[in-house]
């Protein structure tokens, strides 16, 4: 596998940056929900507070970061120009942010009109985003493994959105649907599909590039994302067909979990075995994310073998915290510390070199100290959140407070990067 990353067609800085800068606000909102409701918020996966927090994190924090990343990487890895990048970014960003707020409020206030508004806003946001990606990707050959996996991630997102809209319409109106099955499928496509596959796709590029490791084994780069996608397809069909094929659905789900465990272990090994190991905060975020991914996969496979485990109300919450915060939040948080300084540096050096000036070093854009301390806060928040599932009365609010501090710190660090950009641009005498 060849490395392919070109920054020639980088979109304007504000296209990805608006997503990255506003994403932490949704994590802050999620931590406030937990702080407010305390242990009563952690009783089951169907608790309205859990549903609100889940969607603030998945649609708000992760969704915004992932969409910003896709708009950034499509031009860079594939020369794909999304139509009107600035306008598309503004609309998707506005509709998705507002939609996530309405949906979370809908769960908390249990008001139909809030769900109806959320459905319209989120439906429109994803229609614009997926439509723009479809137009940009039309006729483009998937010559590299990242682009192939990004396409599959986008298909998984489309499935998640359709299932989510169907579920939302049961809250907004009197529609009768098999809610349990649709919820499981919605979560499977959203987490093991869209989130997992996009991380896999991006990891193929950024792990060798920013962690300076060997490239992924050819077979993994070529087949892993497709295998996961096909297995998710089998799970969905088996679940939808009849109760008789339930066993097949469960076996296929366990297989998907094992495929993610393989990805986690291989990526861990690549980072661990690199020639010049230099651990910095992003490396620790990767290790935390990969350990959580492997733990979530093993927990899932274990529950397949021991159905009694699945009956516990804490089981889906453990799985959710491990996958959404332990894996998704950690790797996204870590990657933000590479990608935001790199983009700021790139856009600055391009303009400052032309003006005969030297751009600041990437480590001056966000300092390693700042990101290291935020990592410690994040790791502590994750540990407390997991512990709060065992001792909710004692730890739910402490976990919420720690998660608030960590997310606020991330936000401050990212705002600092944007400030460096504006200050340097002013020095170079260029319009921002």
């Amino acid at each position, binding site marked *: 596998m060849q490395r392919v990353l070109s920054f*020639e067609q980088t979109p304007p800085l504000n296209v990805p940056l608006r997503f990255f800068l506003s994403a932490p606000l949704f994590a802050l909102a999620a931590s406030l929900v937990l702080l407010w409701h305390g242990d009563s918020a952690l009783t089951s996966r169907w608790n309205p507070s859990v549903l609100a927090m889940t969607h603030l994190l998945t649609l708000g924090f992760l969704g915004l970061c992932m969409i910003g990343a896709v708009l950034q990487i499509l031009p860079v890895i594939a020369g794909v120009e999304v139509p009107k990048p600035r306008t598309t970014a503004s609309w998707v960003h506005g509709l998705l942010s507002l939609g996530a707020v309405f949906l979370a409020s809908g769960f908390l206030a249990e008001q139909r009109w809030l769900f109806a508004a959320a459905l319209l806003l989120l439906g429109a946001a994803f229609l614009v985003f997926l439509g723009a990606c479809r137009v940009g990707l039309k006729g483009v050959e998937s010559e590299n493994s990242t682009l192939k996996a990004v396409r599959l991630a986008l298909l998984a997102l489309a499935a998640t959105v359709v299932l989510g809209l169907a579920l939302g319409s049961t809250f907004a109106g009197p529609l009768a649907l098999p809610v349990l099955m649709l919820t499981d499928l919605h979560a499977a496509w959203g987490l093991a599909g869209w989130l997992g596959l996009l991380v896999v796709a991006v990891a193929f590029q950024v792990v060798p590039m*920013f962690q300076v490791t060997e490239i992924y084994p050819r077979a993994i780069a070529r087949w892993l994302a497709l295998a996961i996608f096909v297995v998710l397809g089998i799970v969905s069909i088996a679940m939808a067909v009849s109760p008789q094929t339930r066993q097949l659905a469960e076996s296929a789900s366990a297989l998907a979990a094992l495929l993610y465990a393989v990805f986690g272990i291989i990526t861990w090994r690549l980072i661990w075995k690199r020639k010049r190991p230099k651990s910095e905060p992003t490396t620790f975020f990767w290790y935390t994310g990969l350990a959580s991914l492997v733990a979530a996969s093993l927990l899932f496979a274990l529950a397949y073998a021991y159905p009694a485990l699945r009956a516990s109300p804490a089981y889906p919450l453990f799985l959710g915290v491990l996958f959404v915060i332990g894996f998704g939040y950690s790797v996204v948080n870590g990657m933000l510390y590479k990608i935001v300084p790199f983009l700021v540096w*790139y856009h600055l050096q391009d303009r400052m070199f*032309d003006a005969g000036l030297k751009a600041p070093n990437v480590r001056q854009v966000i300092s390693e100290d700042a990101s290291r301390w935020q990592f410690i806060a994040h790791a502590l928040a994750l540990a407390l959140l997991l512990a709060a599932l065992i001792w909710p009365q004692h730890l739910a609010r402490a976990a919420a407070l720690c998660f608030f501090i960590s997310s606020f710190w991330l936000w401050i660090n990212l705002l600092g990067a944007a400030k460096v950009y504006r200050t340097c641009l002013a020095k170079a005498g260029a319009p921002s």
Partner: protein
Amino acid sequence: MEEQIDIDVCGLEPPEPLERVLEALSTLKPGQCLRMLIDREPRPLYGILERNHFAYEPHLRDDYLYEIHIRHKP
């Protein structure tokens, strides 16, 4: 005979490869050729080279490394 300056930026974390080559370019004299070895195609560099009157020839080697020859435009 053209003087050749070699710079190997393989295995360095971005943006160090680009920083090093920009550093080397700032002292490159007419008649000299900068030969850069890198493990991915440095597309970000091309726009900068073009705007600053440098000519460049990229070659993909059999070992998947890229060798870029950079000179001042005549």
